């Protein structure tokens, strides 16, 4: 497999950038070398396996730009920007499990802050899709907001809902939590003994380290409260499973979600949002029946998407990464805006994949 020459890839990225600028975007150019703290706080240690981390000039750590979204959001939130459209083209650096894939490659992207969510989602998708439509990409979409709404609507303790929400993006742990909260995983005998013990610290030894005895006691109290709470209803777990396993054209998926919403009304606002997005897309000539919807899509990427997500891949090239991806990341603007957030959605194209796919 030969990769396209850098100059050709660069020219393709510049061409896409020019189209985004014509669309009314302002050009942004984030640093290549970013402070690592923000990205580590957002993504945790996992990002070390994906990004190039290096000692920084100030004694801390720095990271070669692993994506554009985070620095663009930081820049926008710092200047308390009004609704805005941004575009960029440049290198990003990712460690690849497959050493034959490039560790440095170009992305051209478009980000939209503010505006009506459904309209903005449709605008970004339409703009990104139009640049690669000639490749007849396979389209998969999803909406993490529906799963989030379903979890928030569960009739159970706030602690359980928060634990599940924290792991929306980690499917394995999410499942382990569901199994425990629904009683499918029984309570270990040692744990039952501990919670029943008159003095749980009887053989605990000295208090060492920064995590205090008070913190241990606080968690023991939470564990006792959890043990006393009734298990999640099997019906509710089944509804979550229905959402997660959903895979259908978007119009059919919407009907199915509306059925689910009869039993789980908490997802109604999110399904209404999906309906408005599909209308907005339809108005732009993108028929919902062409957009596959998957209930789990967007959960295992580390991209912080919390609403609409989409992935466009070349159908005959399963060996290549997606040619374009994107989604809504309102929560990221809150995390980076010191609690103040705003609506934001964006998408990126990989010019190198376009060239490989058309070679």
């Amino acid at each position, binding site marked *: 497999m030969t990769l396209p020459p850098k100059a050709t890839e660069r020219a393709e990225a510049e061409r896409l950038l020019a189209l985004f600028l014509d669309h009314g975007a302002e050009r942004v150019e984030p640093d290549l070398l970013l402070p690592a703290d923000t990205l580590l706080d957002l993504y*945790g*240690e996992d990002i070390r396996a994906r990004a190039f981390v290096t000692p920084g000039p100030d004694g801390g750590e720095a990271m070669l730009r692993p994506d554009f979204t985070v620095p663009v959001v930081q820049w926008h939130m710092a200047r308390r920007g009004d609704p805005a459209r941004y575009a960029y083209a440049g290198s990003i650096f990712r460690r690849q499990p497959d050493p034959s894939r490039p560790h440095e490659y170009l992305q051209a992207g478009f980000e939209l802050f503010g505006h009506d969510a459904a309209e903005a989602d449709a605008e970004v998708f339409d703009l990104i899709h139009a640049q690669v439509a000639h490749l007849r990409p396979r389209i998969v979409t999803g909406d993490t907001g529906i799963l989030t709404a379903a979890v928030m609507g569960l009739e159970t303790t706030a602690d359980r809902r928060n634990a599940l929400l924290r792991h929306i993006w980690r499917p394995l742990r999410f499942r382990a939590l569901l199994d425990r909260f629904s009683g499918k995983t029984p309570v270990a005998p040692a744990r039952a003994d501990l919670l029943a013990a008159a003095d749980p610290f009887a053989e605990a030894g000295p208090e*060492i*380290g920064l995590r205090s005895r008070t913190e*241990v006691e606080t*968690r023991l109290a939470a564990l006792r409260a959890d043990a006393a709470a009734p298990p999640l209803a099997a019906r509710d777990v089944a509804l979550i499973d229905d959402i997660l396993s959903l895979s259908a054209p978007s119009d059919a998926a919407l009907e199915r979600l509306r059925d689910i919403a009869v039993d789980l009304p908490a997802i109604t606002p999110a399904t209404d949002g999906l309906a408005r997005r599909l209308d907005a897309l339809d108005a732009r000539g993108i028929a919902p029946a062409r957009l596959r919807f998957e209930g789990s899509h967007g959960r295992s990427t580390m991209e912080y998407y919390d609403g609409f997500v989409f992935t466009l891949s070349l159908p005959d090239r399963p060996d290549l990464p997606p040619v374009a991806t994107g989604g809504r990341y309102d929560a990221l603007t809150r995390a980076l805006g010191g609690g103040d957030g705003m609506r934001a959605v964006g998408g990126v194209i990989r010019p190198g994949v376009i060239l490989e796919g058309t070679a």
Partner: protein
Amino acid sequence: MIKLGVPSKGRLMEKTFQWFAERGITMEKVEDREYAGRVSGIDGVEMVLLSAGEIPRELAAGRIHLGVTGSDLVREKLAGWDSRVEELARMGFGHADLVIAVPNFWVDVETLDDLDAAAAAFRRRHGHRLRIATKYHRLMREYLRGHGVADYQLVDSQGATEGTVRNETAEAIADITSTGETLRANHLKTLSDGPVHASQATLFRAVDAPWDDAAQATLADLRGRLGV
């Protein structure tokens, strides 16, 4: 001629020599040349004495064809280790488990599930992620990601790792332990999920070494004699 990398000192070297001797292949250090050795009982094999910690890198670079080292070192030092080396034989010695240990008085933490929940609460309270001191960064990161644990950070500790909790430079540790005695002495306990990795001395084949016809023939001969 195929090159076989062997740990250059200590029990790991002695046990390796013994393991090959039990299979009819004698190895010995050459007295006047510190890092060379002699192999008898088979033709076409040259022994190279190396530090056990360097053997993974030499295997990955294809500078040696075969190498004996701890399975923990190969997994820690080589990204995508299983595409760069092949395990020919687990040799049954040099056992050491990489374990996660937390203070004994954390009575609420028995499993990874507990550690994850404790890490979330710790971060909310202290404003930084729960620190795990270790020198096994890759092994730990892959293990914790595989198990969906969040809100932790790995801090580097190249020695006296058990002391980091008492010194408040880490909240938990991950280290190699063969007995558990040191952990108990430092008021630490291991999680009940089992070790992160159960390491032992292993004979590896380098995928990228120059495997010409002669080298392949020698390898086939060697594997026949070793029964691997």
